[in-house]
């Protein structure tokens, strides 16, 4: 047991258990198996949550839309996602003529892989994580970049014009939105003083949602765009390009794309809970006091809160046009992220070791800045979105014109 594992209690407990079970010469295997067990838990947890997300989304969208949603398979339709998955697995796997087979098959896998890679650094409970990378945030940003490539490959390899549209849009949009996404994270990193997600959670004496309202807004919007959910779902836009980049995918390959989307929502929500809502910590009981609920449950609840937020946005908003989406990234989110970064940087420079009172001062300042930005940017956007002056001269036709 190295010192780097002293903190990680879940790993330690599993390791201790396995070490007791296995015969002495197989001590190295206990190491390996302990890590493997956590990976197993994480991957299956993500898959299960993604399935639950499918169910929750369909059900909640139904509620939002004044209908019932799926309620036939199992009690309250809980088994619906499993029925869907079984159906998808049994379906024929069509490779369209003219497709680049290698890339066509690789794209769904590349799409779903980052999902599981991200979970490696997320602390999903007190002292529970697979790896405490000291560059956790950077790792996140790097790993999520893979899906851009996967979407582009999928769209390109299909050889379908609609898919090509989706792929082209995806590249433009995803690359643009990565910039504000990263910039929004930098503010957090400044406040936390570390890139490691475990330390980001521990650094939150107040939830960063209070300290970084602008950062949260930018992060949420950019994440929505990265996951192509409404209002930024241009690459899937089913009213324009039907399904965009995965238009020709059938069976479980399509299922993997869906899994990537839904799992992406779950994982992003988990990230937001980690970064902005103190992760696994109990919001009501101060640190060091006896906890009533296990920390993993708190983490799950906070994740589900953000999942609900995503679904809510999806049920409510129409889609933006491509130029508006790009404009939003560069003209609105970019400046907002930069303003947030500058303000946070100055605060950290003023108060390197903030007391609680100074933290609350930061909250007030940041919210004031956010409010001012809201006013300024909404006025600007209104000015950009102005109609040309009335080009229509009212014509009155009398009855004699017939």
């Amino acid at each position, binding site marked *: 047991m190295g010192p780097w594992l002293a903190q990680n209690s879940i790993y330690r407990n599993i390791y201790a258990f396995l070490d007791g079970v296995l015969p002495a010469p197989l001590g190295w295997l206990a190491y390996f198996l302990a890590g493997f067990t956590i990976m197993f838990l994480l991957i299956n947890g993500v898959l299960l949550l993604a399935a639950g997300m499918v169910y929750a989304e369909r059900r909640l969208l139904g509620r939002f839309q004044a209908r019932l949603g799926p309620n036939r398979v199992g009690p309250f339709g809980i088994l619906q996602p499993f029925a869907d998955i079984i159906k998808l697995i049994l379906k024929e796997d069509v490779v369209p003529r003219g497709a680049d087979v290698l890339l066509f098959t690789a794209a769904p896998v590349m799409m779903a892989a980052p999902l599981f890679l991200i979970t490696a650094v997320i602390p999903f409970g007190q002292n529970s994580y697979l790896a405490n990378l000291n560059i956790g945030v950077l790792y996140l940003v790097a790993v999520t970049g893979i899906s851009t490539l996967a979407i582009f490959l999928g769209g390109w390899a299909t050889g379908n014009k609609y898919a090509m549209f989706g792929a082209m849009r995806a590249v433009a949009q995803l690359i643009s939105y990565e910039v504000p996404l990263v910039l929004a994270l930098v503010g957090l990193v400044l406040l936390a003083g570390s890139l490691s997600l475990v330390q980001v959670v521990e650094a939150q004496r107040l939830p960063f949602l209070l300290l970084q309202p602008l950062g949260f807004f930018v992060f949420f919007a950019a994440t929505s765009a990265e996951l192509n959910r409404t*209002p930024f779902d241009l690459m899937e836009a089913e009213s324009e390009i039907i399904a965009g980049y995965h238009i020709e995918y059938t069976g479980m390959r399509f299922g993997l794309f869906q899994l990537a989307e839904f799992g992406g929502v779950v994982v992003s929500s988990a990230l937001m809970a980690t970064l902005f809502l103190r992760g696994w910590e109990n919001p009501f009981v101060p640190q060091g006091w006896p906890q009533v609920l296990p920390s993993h449950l708190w983490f799950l609840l906070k994740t589900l809160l953000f999942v609900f937020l995503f679904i809510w946005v999806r049920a409510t908003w129409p889609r933006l046009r491509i130029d508006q989406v790009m404009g939003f990234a560069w003209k609105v989110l970019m400046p907002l992220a930069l303003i947030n970064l500058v303000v946070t940087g100055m605060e950290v420079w003023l108060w390197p070791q903030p007391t609680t009172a100074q933290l609350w001062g930061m909250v007030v300042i940041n919210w004031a800045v956010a409010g001012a930005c809201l006013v300024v940017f909404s006025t600007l956007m209104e000015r950009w979105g102005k109609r040309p002056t*009335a080009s229509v001269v009212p014509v009155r036709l009398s009855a004699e014109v017939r």
Partner: protein
Amino acid sequence: MTLQGEPVIINIGPQHPSTHGVFRLRVLFDGEVVQDLEPVFGYLHRGTEKLAEERAYTQIVTLTDRLDYVSSMTNNHAYVLAVEKLARIRPTERGMYLRVIAAELSRLASHLVATGFFLQDLGAFATPLMYCFRERERILDLMEMLCGARITFSYMRPGGVFQDAPPDFWPAIQQFLSEMPHYLDELEHLLTENEVILARTKGVGILPAQVAINCSVSGPVLRASGVQWDIRKVDPYDVYDRLEFDIPVGTHGDCYDRMMVRLQEMRQSLRILGQAVRDIPSGPARAPVPFFLRPPPGEAYAHVESPKGELGFYLVSDGGISPYRCKIRSPSFINLTPLRELLRGWKMADLIVIFGSIDINMGEVDR
């Protein structure tokens, strides 16, 4: 030197989620921008005009149901008016009022569908559509009380309507009239204050009034361009000259105005319905007209303000039991005339939105 992409031709349709039926557009795209397009239709052609030539005048009512299947009542209305003109039949007072009530309910139902699908095209995931359909269902319930059907009504006959409204129809429609304005307020409030909808529709797809008139466009699309033209006002039929209502007119002729004109028209329809329900006289709902009607030889053209525009029937009689020629002037088909001018230079997403704002119905385009 600028990079030049190769223009690409994309078939939008006939199996596309937002072409409202089986409409096909061959579009030449330069990147995201529409350069040129060619509409292709006829996938839903059923030969209604030819079929009408071998049916009795009363039987053709059932054919007209299948034209604009979102508001069948107005099709019945236009056809029945044409037959009455041809055979010089005077419908009964109560029948005329009932026809106006049915037509206005139909207008409401059609505009709800138009608005809902327009928002669906904007990318709002069926949420507004579902709410619009919820209200439409209540209208269809009223229609069901009138004639027992929910889509293809076949309610009107030459000389009136085929049966009087049941007694429980009147309290039901009163309740509907008292509740619907609140829903319309809610809808308008949600639509006019959503930034995304405003950004997507304001200034998009401007149709100048002169172009609209030259293309013979009619209905809400024409009125959104600022032309005050409504068949109910300029050539009143049935009892519209006795009812008070206004014609909403747009100022810009863009998608937003087309949407708002429809919303305002729903309010005016409610006004008309209130007056018609209040003033309806007692009496027979239908004048006695023989089933095998033999109009004198001649021709007649009658038009109504359908939810989509000017729907006209041109009938030629040779004295037989079925028309010698039945020509349908379908508004959806003619409203597609300025499509190329409207769409060129806009982006793909705008193409879908502008196309949705015209509100066509393939049953009527292809006939």
